[in-house]
């Protein structure tokens, strides 16, 4: 079994119009920028995929990554907790024009919805957002005398994930806090696409150090010197 795939273009070739795509990372940390840009390359060449629903904690910064996807018109809807971090102009303008919908989700609820999606749990109850406008229309139930809000699982057609080290079976390790949403998104997608700085033979990662078991991963592509989104933004780079 070898889940390694030869190129970034091939890795993202199956993502079609209207897909729900989870994209790992928290800001630039753990953002699979090369996979995103490979998807953008495909869009520039073919005008597909478009009408995407993108799930990410944020909604892109500057003119690269998710922000570039939005600016190019690939995205119909964002599901995120904080679409207003550093230089979020691409999303803000598209949202205020009505070109992109927003489903705003509290960050912990977002993480748990994705985890639930991966774990086969269709709904769960949480105190988060009770009594706020983000709970409007949602089922409320009391447990042990306290009110809780029902939240649904969140699943995706595809996940784009950044790992540090992978083996050919798709077992993954992450670098520092670049882990964030990545392991959850691996679990919640029909088809999980991973970029890893290094791909090694099975057995070369200590099983005790594996964070994401390869069962959750479909394909892995090696990106030996991944770019940091933060460095690109600081350098004023664009990918639109």
């Amino acid at each position: 079994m070898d889940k390694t795939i030869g190129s970034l273009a091939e890795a993202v070739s199956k993502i079609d119009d209207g897909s729900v795509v989870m994209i790992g990372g928290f800001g630039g940390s753990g953002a699979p920028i090369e996979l995103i840009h490979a998807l953008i390359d495909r869009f520039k060449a073919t005008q597909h995929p478009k009408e995407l629903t993108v799930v990410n904690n944020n909604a892109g910064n500057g003119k690269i990554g998710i922000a570039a996807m939005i600016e190019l018109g690939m995205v119909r809807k964002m599901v995120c907790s904080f679409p207003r971090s550093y230089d979020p102009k691409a999303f803000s303008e598209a949202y205020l024009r009505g070109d992109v919908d927003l489903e705003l989700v509290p960050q912990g609820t977002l993480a748990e919805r994705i985890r639930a999606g991966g774990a086969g749990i269709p709904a769960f109850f949480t105190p988060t957002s009770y009594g706020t406008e983000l709970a409007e229309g949602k089922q409320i139930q009391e447990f042990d005398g306290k009110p809780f809000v029902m939240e649904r699982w969140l699943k995706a057609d595809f996940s784009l994930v950044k790992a540090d080290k992978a083996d050919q079976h798709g077992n993954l390790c992450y670098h520092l806090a670049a882990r964030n949403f990545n392991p959850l998104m691996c679990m919640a997608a029909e088809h999980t696409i991973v970029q890893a700085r290094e791909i090694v033979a099975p057995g070369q990662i200590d099983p005790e150090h594996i964070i994401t078991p390869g069962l959750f991963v479909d394909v892995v592509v090696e990106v030996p010197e991944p770019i940091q989104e933060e460095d690109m933004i600081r350098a004023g780079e664009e990918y639109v």
Partner: protein
Amino acid sequence: MTLPKLSNAQMAWRAAQDITDGAYVNLGIGLPEQIAKFQLEGRHITYHTENGILGFGPAPEKGREDWDLINAGKKAVTLKPGAALFHHADSFAMVRGGHLDLAVLGAYQIAQTGDLANWRVGSKGVPAVGGAMDLVHGAKRVAVITDHVTKDDKPKLVEKCTFPLTGVGCISRIYTSLAVVDIEDGRFVLKEKVPSLTFDQLQSLTGAKLHTTGNVTDLIAPELDQ
């Protein structure tokens, strides 16, 4: 009149006095995170950040940042000995599971019932919530650090929030630029106030009735660099 307010650093200093040895704490972006600068000597406090770190330390030297090691405010941080890394669902299990001892957040308004409004001021613009709605229901104690009044001297401590809520009945203590106020049984109870304001003057700057249940002590902070 010019109000005899504590500076932001002095407010952060005051909040830091209450953080006990061994506590696991989440400090919100902005003013709350300044509290870490005034951690008392001899107290070991472990800071949590939503994106998956327990035990992070101050920013590294310029040029030595690793952009995979950031805090919730997307600023580069460092790891202290004994730090731990984990994914987002574990991070919020720490929050929602009631494992954090304290969360300190900023505020637009706090109601006497402990309701907090701190994520948006109306229905215009782009809304963003982050982890605030999770934090207010997870930590064992949730405190607020804020100026006592708005920029145009309107009360931020009110009977009922008019801005969209972050959480209902979730705040237990407020550190303001003029006072320390607890929320007990759906009312504001004044614990400390700056000595140069009378109770009545402070009441006039507060949008709901201030109660007392014992001595109100003087809120005095040392002179601090901003």
